[in-house]
């Protein structure tokens, strides 16, 4: 069945969804269809015979006449500024002679709408937006003229909420400039100090190319507190190690030759089976060194025991060590581990003898215990047998007193300060020079323990806003002369209470010959509480002071 198909060509052209414009070789309009007439008549009353450049912002008719090749371009209409998608097609006669150009024009919005409807374009756009918005990094996209096209919330926050400094802004611009110059990804760094913390901004510009042309840059910015964070983390770790008494060699602060020699020796000795002897005054860190050698050596997975000879009644020492009836004794518990024996000057000759035999015999065969002996006072023939002295003196570590390594004083003080900052939520940055001078003049008879105690007393109860410790915070240092002992004058009520508490504890401990159970009973507190208080006030467990 055939229907009437007598279509009029002009009708067909008029019904096309494009404006059709025919142009001659003089670049003048010969004819337009209905839609073309509609679009162009807005711009100029007469259309036919008019040069095309009257209507189009940029015309590519010349190019097409030169090359006889089709082109597609986006162009604006004059006056109305309507954006158009224009196809230019060379128009040939029957002999293939070029007689003009055919323009097919379509409003850009229409075209764009089709693209959005029929392609994945909007999907990509949406996904990109989501990615940029939900990124942790600050992100923006700029055109090559550095005009911003897209800025995510994080970027906005960095620049506007945090009021980025001029220097930071300059770095951001320079970063783009460099990336543009080299057409490659560029990283820039910008460091600021804020509230005593170091923050590093890592700024990155990456050029974006489409079909080989630079169309813009993706710039990202990240703030890193990396260094400070690492530092703080390390100090926090040290504080925890301190609380757990789980020391490492790094916890022995200082760079003096004397200390480094000890540390190096300790590294060499840590895996020995022969006994080691640590010599050092009160508060120099003998326990710390012993524990550190254990923690860093091969025995770290086995137990570590601390035995203070002075704390154990003389007659029960042997049974504590070697066992008694049902109790298998400390040595069995320590097997393969480390036994730290403090104050060996107080060992009885009999126990020395028995220990000597054990170390030379059974220990080597099956127990494999690392013995670390220590004494705060020099060992002499009066206390120890020659045999025992020979045994322990083979591997000897001598921790120098603080007065012999004053170059480390500042470092230790600052390290302690950082720990105290964390513990008491403070922000102390410095110690006044005068204080440091007096510290240096002072002899520190109780060594690091005393320094720590004094610093802790100084920072207790001071304000969050204090940045520098001055002589005012060290009342007992105000009138100190060389070689004189500290005369502690408490200032605040808390200090006075602490002062009294410490002295009272010391008094009771002294009275009971440092027997902790007895002392705790007398004080009416638990033994745990007593240990806690002794640590708090830096009372050496074997100290006589």
């Amino acid at each position, binding site marked *: 069945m055939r229907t009437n198909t007598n279509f009029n060509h002009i009708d067909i052209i008029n019904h096309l969804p494009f404006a059709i414009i025919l142009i001659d070789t003089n670049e003048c309009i010969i004819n337009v269809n209905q839609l073309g007439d509609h679009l162009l008549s807005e711009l100029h009353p007469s259309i036919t015979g008019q040069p095309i450049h009257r209507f189009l912002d940029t015309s590519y008719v010349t190019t097409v006449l030169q*090359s*006889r090749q089709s082109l597609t371009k986006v162009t604006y209409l004059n006056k109305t500024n309507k954006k158009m998608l224009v196809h230019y097609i060379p128009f040939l006669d029957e002999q293939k*002679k070029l007689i003009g150009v055919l323009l097919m024009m379509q409003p850009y919005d229409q075209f764009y709408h089709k693209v959005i409807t029929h392609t994945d374009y909007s999907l990509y756009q949406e996904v990109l937006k989501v990615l940029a918005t939900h990124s942790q990094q600050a992100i923006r996209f700029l055109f090559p003229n550095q005009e911003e096209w897209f800025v995510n919330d994080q970027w906005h926050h960095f620049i506007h909420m945090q009021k980025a400094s001029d220097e930071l802004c300059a770095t951001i611009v320079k970063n783009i400039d460099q990336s543009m110059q080299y*057409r490659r990804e560029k990283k820039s760094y910008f460091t600021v100090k804020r509230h005593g913390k170091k923050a590093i901004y890592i700024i990155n510009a990456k050029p974006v190319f489409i079909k080989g042309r630079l169309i813009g840059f993706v710039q990202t910015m990240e703030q890193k507190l990396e260094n400070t964070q690492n530092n703080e983390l390390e100090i926090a770790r040290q504080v925890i190690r301190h609380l757990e008494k789980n020391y490492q060699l790094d916890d022995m602060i200082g760079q003096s030759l004397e200390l480094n020699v000890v540390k190096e020796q300790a590294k060499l000795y840590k895996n020995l089976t022969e006994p080691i002897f640590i010599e050092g005054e009160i508060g120099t860190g003998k326990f710390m060194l012993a524990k550190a050698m254990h923690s860093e050596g091969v025995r770290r997975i086995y137990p570590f025991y601390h035995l203070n000879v002075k704390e154990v009644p003389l007659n029960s020492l042997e049974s504590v060590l070697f066992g008694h009836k049902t109790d298998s004794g400390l040595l069995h518990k320590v097997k393969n581990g480390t036994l730290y024996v403090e104050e060996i000057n107080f060992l009885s000759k009999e126990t020395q003898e028995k220990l000597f035999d054990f170390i030379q015999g059974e220990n080597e065969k099956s127990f494999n215990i690392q013995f670390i002996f220590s004494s705060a006072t020099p060992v002499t023939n009066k206390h120890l047998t020659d045999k025992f002295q020979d045994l322990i003196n083979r591997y000897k570590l001598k921790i120098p007193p603080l007065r012999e390594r004053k170059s480390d004083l500042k470092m230790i003080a600052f390290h302690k300060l950082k720990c105290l900052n964390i513990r008491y939520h403070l922000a102390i940055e410095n110690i006044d020079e005068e204080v440091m001078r007096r510290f240096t003049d002072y002899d520190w008879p109780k060594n690091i323990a005393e320094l720590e105690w004094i610093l802790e007393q100084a920072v207790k109860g001071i304000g969050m806003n204090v940045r520098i410790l001055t002589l005012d915070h060290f009342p007992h240092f105000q009138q100190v002369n060389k070689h004189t002992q500290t005369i502690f004058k408490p200032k605040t009520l808390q200090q006075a209470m602490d002062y009294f508490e410490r002295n009272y504890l010391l008094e009771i401990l002294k009275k009971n010959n440092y027997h902790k159970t007895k002392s705790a009973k007398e004080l009416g507190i638990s033994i745990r509480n007593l240990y806690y208080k002794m640590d708090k006030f830096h009372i050496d467990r074997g100290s006589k002071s």
Partner: protein
Amino acid sequence: MAIFQGEQNLFEMELPLAEDENYLDLMEQETVRVKAILNQIQLIGLNLTSLDAVCGRGGLLKPISGGTYKITKAMLHDLYKGENGMHVSNLGAIIAFRIASNLNIPSFIVDPVVVDEMQPVAKMTGLPNIQRKSIFHALNQKSVAREIAKQLNKSYENTSMVVAHMGGGVTVGAHYLGKVIDVNNGFDGDGPFSLERAGTIPNNELIELCFMNSFTKEEIQNKITFFGGLKAYTEANKVDDVLELLDRNKEEVAPIINALAYQIAKEIGAMGTVLMGKVDAVVLTGDLAKIPLLNEKIMERIHWIADVYVIPGENVMLALAKGTLRAMKGKEQIKNY
């Protein structure tokens, strides 16, 4: 053959030889071709006397600098004799001269393949008695370079760019202030492979090949000039074939296109160093630039050098017309061979 009115391409048509004419000697083709052109002009109803000038493609002449040259007796002599080699393009100037002299109008050639503006340092090789020659698609390279300079709002004489002509042969030129100071000699097998040329082959392997199977000199030359490159891998003769193959058998063809892109990108990078990194634009042109995959793969590697412009195909006719117009209008000095 094309007829231009000003810069407008009024008519253009390929006039291939008939089958029985293919056997004619290069110089014997002259008469046949001239006749075909004149016939066609009469066929479209154009009055021959309305012609102002005739322009032909320059052939293998002595090395000369770029520009528009008047066709002279000396030039014709070299082309007839094939002083610098025999090539179809030698006929261009000869035909142009024949048509023009009958009409008593001037005839020209523009930027022949032998344009030599190479700096001396570029000519040296590792063998003192062998020098690199400047033989390349000067006409199209210079024409697109001028076009891009215009787009950049600069004059050709004031820009530096790398132009890669990718066609039957691939030549990549370093254009510096209006001169091509270095270019690979694609004609003689220097540089990337191409549609049908083998490009640079490792010396030893090439020497081995020459003495194998007792090839004659011509056989070897033929092999590496007309049966190498994409043709050797895919048996595609034309760009359209390559595009069709890519459509049909992408897995097999894409790696070859990728290798070609790699070699061309390398050459573009090399020219970037010739220009000391100061490059205003990189242009990809020639028939192979119609292969989007090839363009993409090249751009991936070189977009960091400069913005890349793609002008696919080769508008030889427009280039000749423009060169002639520049000369006729006195915008450019007419050069003598």
